[in-house]
């Protein structure tokens, strides 16, 4: 569906070198701090910026053409339809741009989320804007959704509703895929099949979400335990007030061989913090 190989983009104070793949039927997450290169990667995939190197293959093509864009649904965190338009205005625009625009689905979702049809988008709340963006992206039977922070600014209930929408969307067609970035890691844990972690423009980690949640763990050890610990499966460690916290991808090994140490199930946030701030063992 989407293959990015050593995508390069150089700015004065930042350089990107990113490789990732989104397989058919997969929901792939892209996580990283602000300024890590997530949005630059999205923009390069969408052809909004020119690349300095590497390759992008999307729908089997090296660049997006008008026909390919029919198969693409996009949410960008900081960009959307002109704020001077209303939902009533954008319906005929979408009808004439997308061959497979599903007006009844669009209106059903607009009503479900109680979005006003005749109010200018610039007067919408952050949450209303986010809901509209995702409804637009899903309203034309796209094969690939590229969602940059789609749940930003939403409350818990609205986030759950949108995540349900994404699940329904994937359930309708097993060839559909989603590439999603979010700073709310719990969103990604519940929806993503795999994820890439990006830091300072480089992919630090690629892992299946199931593996991360079942095999990765945080070991909390004091100084003496740390000295005696077999560090063969420790990815990163960090000094703490009580001793050390260590990130491992072999939880079972430490549970079996070190019954006295604290082994906590890790989440994406923990992994990201350790991968970025921790020291390599």
């Amino acid at each position, binding site marked *: 569906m989407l293959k990015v190989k050593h995508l390069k983009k150089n700015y004065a104070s930042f350089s990107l070198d990113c490789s990732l793949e989104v397989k058919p039927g997969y929901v792939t997450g892209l996580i990283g701090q602000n300024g890590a290169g997530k949005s630059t990667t999205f923009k390069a995939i969408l052809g*909004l910026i020119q690349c300095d190197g590497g390759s992008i293959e999307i729908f089997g093509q090296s660049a997006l053409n008008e026909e390919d*864009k029919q198969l693409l649904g996009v949410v960008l965190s900081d960009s959307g339809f*002109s704020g001077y338009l209303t939902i009533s205005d954008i319906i005929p*625009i979408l009808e004439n741009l997308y061959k497979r625009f599903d007006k009844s689905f669009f209106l059903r979702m607009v009503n479900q989320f109680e979005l006003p049809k005749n109010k200018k988008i610039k007067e919408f709340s952050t949450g209303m804007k986010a809901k509209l*963006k995702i409804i637009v992206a899903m309203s034309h039977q796209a094969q690939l959704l590229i969602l940059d922070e789609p749940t930003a600014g939403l409350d818990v209930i609205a986030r759950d509703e949108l995540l349900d929408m994404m699940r329904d969307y994937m359930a309708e067609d097993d060839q559909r895929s989603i590439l999603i970035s979010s700073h709310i890691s719990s969103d990604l844990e519940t929806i993503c099949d795999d994820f890439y972690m990006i830091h300072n423009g480089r992919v630090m980690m690629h892992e299946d979400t199931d593996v991360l949640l079942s095999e990765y763990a945080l070991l909390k050890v004091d100084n003496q335990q740390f000295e005696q610990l077999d560090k063969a499966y420790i990815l990163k460690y960090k000094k703490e007030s009580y001793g050390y916290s260590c990130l491992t991808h072999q939880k079972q090994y430490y549970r079996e061989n070190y019954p006295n140490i604290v082994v906590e199930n890790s989440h994406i946030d923990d992994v990201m913090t350790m991968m970025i701030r921790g020291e390599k063992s």
Partner: protein
Amino acid sequence: MKGLLIKDFKLMLIQKNFFIIIIVVTCLISISSQDPTFMIGFITLILSLFTVSTISYDEFDNGYPFLLTLPFSRKTYVLEKYVYGLILGTGAWIVSVMICSLMFIVQGKPVTSDMLIGAFVILPMFLVIESLMIPVHLRFGGEKGRYALIACVGVLVVIGFVVMKIVEIFHIDVLPLILAIDALGPVMFMVILLMIGFLIMLVSLKVSLSIMNKKEF
């Protein structure tokens, strides 16, 4: 392209009150000055400004990145601005010529060839103005575009002044040129002016496409 045209007409409708005021004021000026031809130029040129105002609306609140993910190419986007400008300009020209003719009839004046020539001269002017404004706004955006446009007009005025000075200093005889234009007759002259206008617009289109293709969002 149809979807983009709908978007731009919807954006233009936001300014409908401004447009109505312009028509009313122009009609009043035309009636009081006893010169209805004034409105043809004024309305057509004001309407041509709406083309670049849609570029400003597109870029409002960082709208461009999302807009360009919709199913059209950058080439289509640029072409649409010219098509929209032509629809708007020629539409405004036709309507204002009709209102003007109606005012002539109401005032009991005959619709003269002078009025028609005056009306036709507006069309190549409109083409040149659109050709100048669209690439400047695409390159510099709404805010800086205004200053860039003023600078462009300034440069054109300076060029015109320099040409006049050269003619004056070197005593170049422009009479044969004037006679040659006169010999063409008004219809042929208008056709040539229109062709020049379209030629300038084609060059402008090429420049705009190059600007848009190089832009990063």
